[in-house]
């Protein structure tokens, strides 16, 4: 399940114009990938639409934090 959600997040970030090989589970959303606030909102909206979850994404999170938030929300 973790892997599936990680790939989902990766895919959504790639749709915003980021390279797949830049994205690891330890990548910081802001510090490493450089998503701006509007891009963070867009990822949140995708999660809300596809997982019916309101995740409070913070720019200082890492990708693995986002995956874990979704996993927690699904339980």
């Amino acid at each position: 399940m973790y892997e599936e959600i990680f790939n989902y997040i990766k895919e959504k970030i790639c749709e915003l114009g980021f390279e797949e090989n830049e994205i690891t589970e330890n990548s910081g959303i802001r510090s490493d990938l450089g998503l701006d606030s509007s891009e963070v909102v867009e990822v949140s909206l995708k999660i809300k639409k596809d997982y019916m979850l309101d995740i409070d994404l913070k720019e200082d999170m890492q990708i693995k934090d986002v995956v874990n938030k979704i996993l927690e929300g699904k339980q």
Partner: protein
Amino acid sequence: MKNKKLIVTGRGLINPAGNSLNDFWNHILSEKICYGKLNIKDDTPIKVGARVKDFNPVSYISKRIEVKTDTFTHYFLASLSIAMKEAGLTIHNENEDEVGIFYGNNSGGWRICEKGFDELFTQSYAMVNPWQATAWFPTAGEGYASIIHGIKGYSKTFVADRVSSAAAVYHGIASLQNSRNKKILVGGSEAPLTGLGTICYNENGSISNAISEELCKPFVSDSPGIVLSEGGAAIVIETSDNANSLGIAQIKGYATNYYATNQVEGVVACMNRAIWSADLETADIDLIIPEGNGDWESDRIEIEAMRALFIHRPDKLPIAFPKCYFGHQYGAAAVSDVICACMALEYNAIPQYRFIDEIDELFTDKLTSKINNVLVNSRTSAGVNYSFIISRIEN
């Protein structure tokens, strides 16, 4: 206003007739009609329009910018990148404050609006994309161009119907003459060929509702109307003492006015002033590219004005109607016509007009001498006029 010599050093366009200068000009000279059925929805009133073809925005801008912006911004950013390349212009710390952007757009981003409405009405307000406000707005072209290229000079966006990019050229020139900028990037774009866009444009009453590719016939009374089009156009203008190159053409004269009631008088006065500001006389004009858009209500005023101004010419006045091949691009239209003027000067050629025998006998589509000075008009149905004199660069 000081009279500095203004040089066009770069040109770029994304146009239904081609996305490179050569493709565009060859297409125009071969008189190929670049419009066809839009196939938007069976019950929408505008059935025919001119779409840009084979355009991939990420060939010109990053995917990150593409996602956040509407099609009209893609067209401008791509045109600008082509124009800057031809001008050899890059922005750096030393010139970032000396270069301004002057941009025209009439109606903002229809594609992003349709997406936003769909998100709002089929999902919820909380699901509306985060770029709705910034991507829709007509200034997005100027804004993203300044972000991408790091431009910090005095800049403006003009939302002014069919003269949007003519206003951009005129006021951009003023910023050069007033020394607020040393170089300017001028252009415009439009992308109205969506369901909502065509419905709204149809309300102005001058757009063709032809059901097939019926030809737009500028200056002919039974023309079906304006063929709605899309695309972008950009030029780089520099004062001659700041130009990196000898340049392509010179903007020698320019004028604007607003005559709401006697529109013929307004067009005459505007053309006359532009010719006067170039230190020329009517006999010096070798070619005219009029607004001539296929809307008879607009065209008949312009014909009458041109007849009044040029009636005493001993020979026929060469005329070209690029719009009859690729439609009216609104925000991009005037700069596309300025680029056509530059191309006509460069190649000493103009497209033939298949309805030349149906228009006033004062005009011809055959060149009688070398083109040195081109008069370009842009005007709205409300009586706002712009005229420019695009000339061969003097040694």
